[in-house]
């Protein structure tokens, strides 16, 4: 009944082969309303997002609340239903069917934003970390389970006496370690980290970030790191996608996004980040207005009502297309795409 723990076909790592490919991902939520509480419309939370994830790398997805970054994570993990596009794990289509494929479920794991909420308060730590072992690897023997859990806990610097405690007895940082240990349980290839440090204090955040880096080096993990904090992604990321209202507006590596950014939104986002030293201080770009509701996005480029660059005639008519500034650096903005049309 139980599937074998190590699948030789999966365990071989080819660094140039993407471990996860997402193409034109679309996620829609219905809007319920009206007299009869029927579906009256849809929110397009994610609108055609594509990326590839390679082993040993961290892909950062940055954006403000409501831009759909968490939805992408949930779509990959099959926690929400997608309405279009494709998600492939090493060339195997997993969109909307990850729950049925235990073999791949093991390989893609997730760390949630709030460590407090992502641990079942009524379960002991050993049961929490042991859950994927039981469900996905089919380990039933209690002693073996404790053994494996303990190994995992040592990996994230938790102590043996923590094994039989309940989550509320831990601090925020420790809870996040527990969550990470749980994610590591089945030797995953991909871990989706949904704002893993935003609920934590700075000093604890540093501990967790270092731990994540160490684990990546040791276990050759690929991370999708979702955050709103640019300095965190600058520290830990390799490639970055900046999202606004369900779409990427600019993607590139650290160099491209932080030191050669072109999109007005990326620029505003970077300048809004509070600096902590004189060398980081820069001119503030204060964006006006609020992020529009995804249920009623502006026409054309969704950023145009807040954009501070010169408005072009296309801006409020057509959605901008992808323009490659370099091999790694892509942008969705009419300021760049226009010349080539």
């Amino acid at each position: 009944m139980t599937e074998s723990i190590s699948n030789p076909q999966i365990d071989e790592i080819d660094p140039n082969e993407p471990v996860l490919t997402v193409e034109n991902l679309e996620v829609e939520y219905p809007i319920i309303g009206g007299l009869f509480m029927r579906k009256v419309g849809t929110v397009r939370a994610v609108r055609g997002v594509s990326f590839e994830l390679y082993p040993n790398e961290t892909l950062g997805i940055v954006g403000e609340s409501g831009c759909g970054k968490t939805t992408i994570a949930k779509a990959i993990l099959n926690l929400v239903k997608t309405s279009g596009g494709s998600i492939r794990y090493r060339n195997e289509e997993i969109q909307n069917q990850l729950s049925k494929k235990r073999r791949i479920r093991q390989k893609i794991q997730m760390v949630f934003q709030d460590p407090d909420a992502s641990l079942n308060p009524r379960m002991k730590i050993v049961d929490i970390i042991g859950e994927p072992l039981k469900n996905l690897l089919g380990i039933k023997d209690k002693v073996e389970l404790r053994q494996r859990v303990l190994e995992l806990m040592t990996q994230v610097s938790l102590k043996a006496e923590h094994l039989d405690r309940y989550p509320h007895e831990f601090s925020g940082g420790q809870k996040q370690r527990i969550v990470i240990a749980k994610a590591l349980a089945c030797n995953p290839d991909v871990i989706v980290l949904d704002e893993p440090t935003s609920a934590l204090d700075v000093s604890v955040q540093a501990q967790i970030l270092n731990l994540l880096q160490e684990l990546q080096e040791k276990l050759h993990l690929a991370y999708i790191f979702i955050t709103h904090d640019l300095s965190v992604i600058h520290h830990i990321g390799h490639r970055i996608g900046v999202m606004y209202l369900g779409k990427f507006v600019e993607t590139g590596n650290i160099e491209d996004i932080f030191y050669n950014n072109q999109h007005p939104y990326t620029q505003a986002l970077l300048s809004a980040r509070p600096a902590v030293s004189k060398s980081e201080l820069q001119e503030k770009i204060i964006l006006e207005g609020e992020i529009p509701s995804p249920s009623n996005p502006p026409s054309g480029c969704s950023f145009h009502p807040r954009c501070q660059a010169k408005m072009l005639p296309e801006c409020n008519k057509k959605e901008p297309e992808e323009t490659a500034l370099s091999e790694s650096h892509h942008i969705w903005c009419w300021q760049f795409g226009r010349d080539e049309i």
Partner: protein
Amino acid sequence: MEDIKITNLEAKLYRPEPFGKQMSEITKKYLGFLFVPGMKSRELERRHEMLTRFKSKRRFITKLNNPLTIFGFFIIFIVVTWAVFAPLITVFDYDIEITGIAEGITPWSAPNYLHPLGVSKFGRDVLARLIWGARSSLTMGLFSIIISVTLGTLLGIFSSYQGGIIDNLIMRMVDIIMAFPGLIIVIILISILSTSMQTILLTYGILGIPGYTRLIRGTALQEKNKTYVEAAKVAGANDLKIMFKHILPNCLAPIIVAFTFDIGGIILSLAGLSFLGFSDSSLVEWGTDINYARNHIYDAPWAAFTPGFGILLTVLAFMLVGDGLRDALDPRLQGRK
């Protein structure tokens, strides 16, 4: 990262310690600073660590420790004792209490030393009926509530987790049943079926299901949207496991509170039912007694007051305990007092 790493050997050998050993550890840690001079400040920290480990239990117990709740527990203890040991406590047998006591005793006579609480219809001893009555009240209350709780919880969790049409259907049924005037519908059902104890018990049990379904559904809906449920899905848990291993344990607090309250509630409405004359005549029941004694408050008030007092105290006890439990379990009230 952390200073202490566990050696592999330790890891392999680690097993939960037996309880006795744990306790001795605790005493050592609690009281160590008494024996070793100059250890105090660091001992305090250790002590705190031990405290946090037992914090949840401790907090729960201290929260229950208020005079009203203790009073409630005390009465429940007495009533349960009566119900269980009734034959040992009273000299009058159950059968005698049903048929009436031998000749020579005037019905409705005042308390005397043989009948400390007086005598009612057919020369029955009031005290004995009070004690026997605890048995039937508790049994009926408990059994019908267990039916309601079990089925109601199952339906509630299932309904909330499935959502969609199934949920809608179940909830409409619940709405319909809950819209009936309760006591009237019980009486109608009983007059259709029979007034035997089993019928009454089942009727109450089944009519109680919707209340629990609604209660559990509300809590479960909140729990269902919490991140740990998603985390469980990521960890490969299937629907059954999520429903019963993850969601159910987190919905227990309101169930326990409602359970305690409703035992009281059911005893109360059963009494009302027997007061109206719809009861199993082969049972000794407080409500029935009041019904018999109704027209004798002029000449034998004791016959009506005693069983009423029994009902009041028993129901009150369950309510007091339920109230205490709610304060102790309610997460919204957690952390303050």
